[in-house]
């Protein structure tokens, strides 16, 4: 099977190279049949990479430990659910996933635009297949997921326990879908620039792909945040980690792009800016992929040091140099068709929003690469922590939320001060009332949080007002009842109201971020059985005692679990019982480990327990004191070392099982102290709810509408304009 995978990967690489050559030759020589052949090469690439990916997945699901990657990232006891996802937990498998997703998205866009932009297509195909050539080349010549071991081991080392979380099943495919989807508008921008067709056509052809990229990347980032909050045992959802930042960078510039293309579509302005933004976003998507696998920056999410750095640097260098050359050489056709009519216009607000988003991206970029910059300049690698990011990102986030409220109530081209005043009254009242109402609750002590709440209330106010006025207008026009008018309003204006829904979700999300970071109580404490600790805000927690158990699968012990039972009280009234745990996974394939010790020497993960609510989350993690247990484990190792060979295998296994069971039971009976990390964090749930609203808005925007591009008409132009508008 490994040979089959290797052969398919090589074929995919060859097809990608052919696609680049055929598309370029067809484009330059004007030979349509070569372009069609290149287009078919994209479909063939999708078929080949799908087959290769299936071979890899089957290897994982069948426990085929002759595959090096299966041996190092899975084991017999790894649950089926996680075996399927283990393919992309490895460097090699994730590269194959990248190539597969790229080929699928490329096929979709090439199919959907097969009758459009025929002059742009050859260069767009060549660019997409260029990316495929790069990743296919890495898989063939640098890191193959189909490498085999000289001797097939009985078992693998297992999947990193930290990755055994449901969100980790879909987090990487979401992120990679985002990264690979950004390649689509990037490729079409390159094609449009090459043939000097920089009107809005390439934007309209790829807008949904850009939205899809934004949506997938956003979902990926949020799933990562959720994983961090629920799995990593530190209680936060964002740590400004380089790999987290790497995914945020293209999302920020992509968000700017999705706003500014509206200005180009409507007014023929910002062409240079849009071309530059999407070229930067595509490059940042590759940079994100590079950071995860280069080993140049330290991150919990990275694959560690590898030899892939140089090829990625070359690719990124080519992308930057090529982008700059294309934009500079096409500056004559990139001139704006109109000028900004007024600073009080939606295009001016979009420009402001773009400056803020790109400013944020610059801050994140600088902070992420500062260790490398400082090392180059001073010889010392210095990192910038969350306080540095907060100093710059918080004011920019405030400006962003404010602008997200202002934008929807300002008209395109020009808004009169009188209309603007009328539109701002109620949202302003909402913002001011919110701020005043929160002061008695001690929010004034956190001015940034107070301002964020006020700005978010203002933004929510403008959006509610927009929906309400839209429904009223629709009711007046059609006589529809309010619920129907609401739905029709959204259906007929998906971009506008989908966008407003996204703004609403972002405002809710930022409220959650501001509240949870400004008013969080973190408490790390060692407790003996029966001891009570104060959590703040009127909450207390009592350590009722330790817990322990053995998790087994059909193939053996999956992990030993040591935990604690905590009863939480609010003003002395019982609120809930929390059971945080820590799981210890047996070390696989390590002959030096003792018979008993191997169950304690492997990876361990924190299984947090929390009570989540709209108002606040009570979050807990435990680190059990296993020192007394480990002393017995050492003795057990010595006993079993002596018994080895003197007992038959069945008796040996039974004795080992009894020992492990006794150890775990004794831990619970002996009631040792345990160290707890306890957090009372307000409104974290708002982050996840806000994100859901954002994604709902994204889906509304992305949902296909009837194709209006090729309407036919003859004469009676004014009547036709009216008729066609009525039909839409």
């Amino acid at each position, binding site marked *: 099977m490994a*040979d089959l995978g290797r052969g*398919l990967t090589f074929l995919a690489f060859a097809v990608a190279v052919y696609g680049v050559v*055929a598309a370029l030759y067809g484009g330059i020589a004007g030979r349509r049949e070569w372009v069609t052949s290149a287009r078919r090469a994209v479909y*063939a690439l999708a078929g080949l990479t799908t*087959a290769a990916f299936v071979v890899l997945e089957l290897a994982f699901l069948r426990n085929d430990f002759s595959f090096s990657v299966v041996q190092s990232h899975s084991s017999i006891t790894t649950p089926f659910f996680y075996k399927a996802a283990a393919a992309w937990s490895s460097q090699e498998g994730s590269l194959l996933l990248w190539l597969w997703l790229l080929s699928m998205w490329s096929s979709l866009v090439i199919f959907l635009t097969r009758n459009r932009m025929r002059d742009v297509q050859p260069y767009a195909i060549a660019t997409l297949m260029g990316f495929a050539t790069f990743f296919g080349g890495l898989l063939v010549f640098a890191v193959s997921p189909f490498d085999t071991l000289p001797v097939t081991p009985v078992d693998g080392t297992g999947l990193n326990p930290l990755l055994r979380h449901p969100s980790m099943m879909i987090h990487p495919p979401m992120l990679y879908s985002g990264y690979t989807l950004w390649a689509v508008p990037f490729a079409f921008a390159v094609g449009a620039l090459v043939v000097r067709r920089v009107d809005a056509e390439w934007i309209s052809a790829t807008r949904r792909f850009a939205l899809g990229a934004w949506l997938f990347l956003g979902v990926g980032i949020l799933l990562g945040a959720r994983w961090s909050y629920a799995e990593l045992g530190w209680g936060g959802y964002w740590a400004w980690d380089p790999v987290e930042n790497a995914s945020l960078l293209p999302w920020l510039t992509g968000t700017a792009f999705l706003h500014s293309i509206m200005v180009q579509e409507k007014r023929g302005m910002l062409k240079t800016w849009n071309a530059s933004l999407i070229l930067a976003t595509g490059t940042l998507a590759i940079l994100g992929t590079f950071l995860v696998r280069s080993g140049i920056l330290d991150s919990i999410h990275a694959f560690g040091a590898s030899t892939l750095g140089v090829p990625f640097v070359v690719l990124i260098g080519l992308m930057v140099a090529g982008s700059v050359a294309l934009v500079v050489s096409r500056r004559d056709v990139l001139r704006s068709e109109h000028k900004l009519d007024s600073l009080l216009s939606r295009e001016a607000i979009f420009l402001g929003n773009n400056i803020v988003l790109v400013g944020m991206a610059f801050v994140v970029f600088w902070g992420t690469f500062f260790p490398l910059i400082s090392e180059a300049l001073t010889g010392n690698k210095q990192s910038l922590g969350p306080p540095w990011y907060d100093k710059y990102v918080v004011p920019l986030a405030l400006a962003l939320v404010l602008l997200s409220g202002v934008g929807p109530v300002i008209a395109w081209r020009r808004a009169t001060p009188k209309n603007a005043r009328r539109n701002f009254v109620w949202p302003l009242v909402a913002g001011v009332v919110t701020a005043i109402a929160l002061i008695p609750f001690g929010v004034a002590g956190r001015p940034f949080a107070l301002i964020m709440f006020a700005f978010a209330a203002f933004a929510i106010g403008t959006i509610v007002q927009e929906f309400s006025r839209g429904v009223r207008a629709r009711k007046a026009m059609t006589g529809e009842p309010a619920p129907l008018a609401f739905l029709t309003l959204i259906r007929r204006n998906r971009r506008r109201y989908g966008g407003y829904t996204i703004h609403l979700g972002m405002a809710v999300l930022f409220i959650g971020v501001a509240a949870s970071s400004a008013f969080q109580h973190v408490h790390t404490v060692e407790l003996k059985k029966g001891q009570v600790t104060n959590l703040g805000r009127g909450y207390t927690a009592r350590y009722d005692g330790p817990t322990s158990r053995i998790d087994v699968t059909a193939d053996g012990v999956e992990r030993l679990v040591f935990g604690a039972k905590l009863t939480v009280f609010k003003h002395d009234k019982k609120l809930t019982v929390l059971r945080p745990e820590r799981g210890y996974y047996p070390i696989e394939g390590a002959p030096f480990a003792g018979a008993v010790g191997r169950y304690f020497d492997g990876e361990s993960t924190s299984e947090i327990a929390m009570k989540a609510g709209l108002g606040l989350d009570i979050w807990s993690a435990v680190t059990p004191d296993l020192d007394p247990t480990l002393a017995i484990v050492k003795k057990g190792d010595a006993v079993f070392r002596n018994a080895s060979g003197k007992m038959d295998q069945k008796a040996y296994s039974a004795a080992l099982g009894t020992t492990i069971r006794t150890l775990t039971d004794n831990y619970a009976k002996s009631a040792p102290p345990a160290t707890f990390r306890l957090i009372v964090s307000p409104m974290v749930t708002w982050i996840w709810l806000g994100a859901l609203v954002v994604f709902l808005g994204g889906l509304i925007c992305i949902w296909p509408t009837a194709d209006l591009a090729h309407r036919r008409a003859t004469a009676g132009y004014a009547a036709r304009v009216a008729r066609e508008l009525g039909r839409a």
Partner: protein
Amino acid sequence: MDVIAVVGVLAAASAAGYVVAGPLRGGRAEADDAAYQSQLEDLEAAKEARYREIREAEMDFRTGKLSEVDYKAIDRQLRAEAMELLRKLDALGASGD
């Protein structure tokens, strides 16, 4: 290399080769009138953009973001631009219903 792998890779290579070489087997395809096509697509895209703008302006007016005077001026201008684009499309021979 095992037999299944050899057969699988050869089958995949043959299928990919057949699919990719298909357009080349029919000889040289008729060349696109690329300039005509791109002009047509540009005009269609511009027309759709104007239609979108007209609808947006109407929505802005109905939701109180534009005064009636401003709305009428913008609507008039956008409709004139849309009509001009339709004339150009007709002249290009792309329309007719």
